[in-house]
Structures are given as C-alpha cells and as structure tokens.
C-alpha cells in the first residue's frame, strides 16, 4: 500500500491486495480470510480524500476486482467487478453528519445477471451529549439484486466507559424487502 498527501489537505492511498472469491456475485459471502485467501487474481483500490477544512472529510474510492471467481471459468460466474464509493463527513461541535454511497458493477460470464449492479448508502446524524454519552440515528438503503430495495433505520445511544471503550445500544426497523427484522442491537467497541 502507498499513501501520500499534499499540504492543501488532499491525500490518496493506493493498495494492491487479495480479491473477493464469490462466483455468484454475493459480495458479503465473497470476502476471504487474509491468510487463506485464494490469490489467483488480485484487487486494486485507490482512494482520494480531502480534509483541508476543519471538521470536513470528502472522499471517493475505486476498487477493481480482476476476477471474482478467482480463475473459475464456469459459465455464468462473476468475473471482473468495479466498486465506486463516495462519502462525506461533517463535524461541527458535538454534531456529526455522514453520507455515503457505493455501487458495484459486476461482469457475469454469459451476459446480464440480477446481481450485476448492487448499490447502497446511508445517512447518519450523531450528537455527542458529553464525554460519556452520545446518540445517533441512521437510515440505510441498499439493493443487491434487481427490483429488491432494502431499507433499515437505526436509532441508538453510545456510552463511553473509557475514552477507548464504548457500549452501544440501538433499535432497528427494516422494510419487507430487508426481511422485517425489527429488533435491537447491543455492542461493545474498543479502539487500540
């Protein structure tokens, strides 16, 4: 990986790494474990980011997967794929706003496939009440196959027991396409 930045707040990163392994185009299931990754083909990622204004981050990334089937030439398999992503984050005082959008374009052997275009994004707003507590709300929308539009909303609270450790709790609501999995989540975050 290579990273550099300019004095005006523009930075970029270039990475060469192992790719996905998922002939059916299921992005999530295509992720590999680094040490066990099949590396018949690679992936390349480039990111451009701007942080030259206090509290603002604007970034865009492109990732190219050489072959999502890692050399498996079975007819109908996913082949080369491209991911484009863009996001913006703006923090002012105790308020933080985030917006992100990403889209996959996957070439399937033999022509079109319901999963050849996948996209999604989210909008999030958070408020840090004090050193210990914060709240957030997030709206997620994503589509992994044609004519299926999934949506989920989350509202939650964070509690920092230590500056590096946070307890998280949120409730979620999904639409029918996403599975109507309404409920709550509990989590623990630790940064090191």
């Amino acid at each position, binding site marked *: 990986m*290579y*990273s550099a*930045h300019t004095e005006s707040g523009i930075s970029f990163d270039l990475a060469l790494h192992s790719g996905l392994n998922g002939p059916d185009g299921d992005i999530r299931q295509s992720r590999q474990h680094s040490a066990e990754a*099949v*590396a018949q083909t*690679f992936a390349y990622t480039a990111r451009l980011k701007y942080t030259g204004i206090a*509290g603002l981050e604007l970034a865009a990334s492109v990732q190219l997967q050489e072959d999502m089937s890692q*050399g498996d030439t079975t007819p109908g398999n996913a082949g080369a794929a491209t991911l484009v992503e863009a996001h913006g984050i703006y923090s002012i005082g105790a308020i933080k706003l985030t917006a992100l959008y990403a889209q996959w374009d996957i070439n399937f052997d033999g022509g079109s496939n319901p999963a050849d275009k996948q996209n999604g994004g989210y909008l999030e707003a958070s408020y840090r009440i004090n050193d210990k507590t914060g709240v957030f709300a997030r709206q997620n929308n994503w589509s992994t196959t044609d004519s299926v539009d999934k949506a989920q909303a989350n509202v939650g609270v964070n509690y920092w027991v230590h500056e590096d450790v946070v307890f998280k709790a949120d409730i979620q609501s999904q639409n029918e396409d996403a599975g109507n999995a309404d409920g709550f989540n509990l989590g623990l975050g630790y940064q090191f």
Partner: protein
Amino acid sequence: MTGNIRDTVLLQYPFFLGQSRMFKNLLITLTLFVFLPGAVQARGVYQHPDEFVSQAFAQHPPESHIVWLKDELQQDVKHILGHAYRNRRIRYWLKDHRSVWVLEEIGKKQPITTGIIVNHGKIESIKVLVFRETRGWEVKYPFFTDQFKNVSLVRDQRLDKTIDGISGATMSVRAVKKLARMALYLDHKVDQP
C-alpha cells in the same frame, strides 16, 4: 497455477497491458500525482524543536528550566494524560509570563512531538513539530491548531473550549488536546506570581 502471490503476479502481468484501461489510466494519473511537487509522506519533521523554541522568542530564547514531575504534579499530569508521562523531568522556557513547552504524547502507536506556547495562562499557539505515524497527520494543519488559541484551563484541568475533531484522526486529536491541557497546567505551576 499454484495460486501463490509470486506466480500470480508474474502470470497476471499482461493484465496491466491491456485488460483495464480505466484503472490503468487512473493508476498512471495517481502515480504522476505522487511525484508532483507538494506530495509528501505523512511522517516527518515539520520543525525541529530547537528551532521552534528559538522562533518563539525571536531567536533569543532565555535559559531553560526544569520542572520535575513528582507528588501532586505527577498525579495531576497522570490524570490529564490517563497515564504517567514518559519523562519525570521536563524542560521549559519562561520569560515575561510566556512559557514554551515541547511535549510528546502517543497518538495511535508513535509519539507526536508538539510545541506549545502559553502566554499569561492561555495558549498562544500550538504546532506539531514531529509526526511519526501514517494516519492522523491532519492535526498539523492551522485549521485544527488555531482552535487552541486563547484556550485556558477550567476545573478538572479541562479546556475551556470545545475543540472540533478530525474524522479519521481521533487519536492524534486526542493526543494534541491532552498536551495542550498538560502545558497549561504546568505553566500555571511554574509561572507563579
């Protein structure tokens, strides 16, 4: 094919020659960008500490003094940083109620060397002098450090003003904030009337 990385790189080299014009063009563009004037690495010595001190006193710095972190000072500094400071002996320069400190605190893994000027109990300026990590370098920018101007301490050695953070530089921001608090606290202790 064996599937190992070496064989894969050699066998897949023709990929660069013809299979992805879009990414090849992007890679070339970004590679040129690397060599454009102004492209720098995150790590670096932005200003030598001796030069910072000299500049702070218009090239005529006073004799330095030493403050020992022991007893109450040691406990209070530990409270500010969340851990004991790496040195028990801290050098500083003081003239006309204006003190200059060169302090270090770890961001994520490496120490960030920071110069701090305190004037009559308020921060006059903060400057990142040496940055040793690959992420979080944005703390060197004036848009971040200018927030500390005229900041002072309130109860519990906290800053009297909210400092806006930097996305992706949380730990570097936290380190600089802690050093600001530490410098203000030590200034209060050494610049007694």
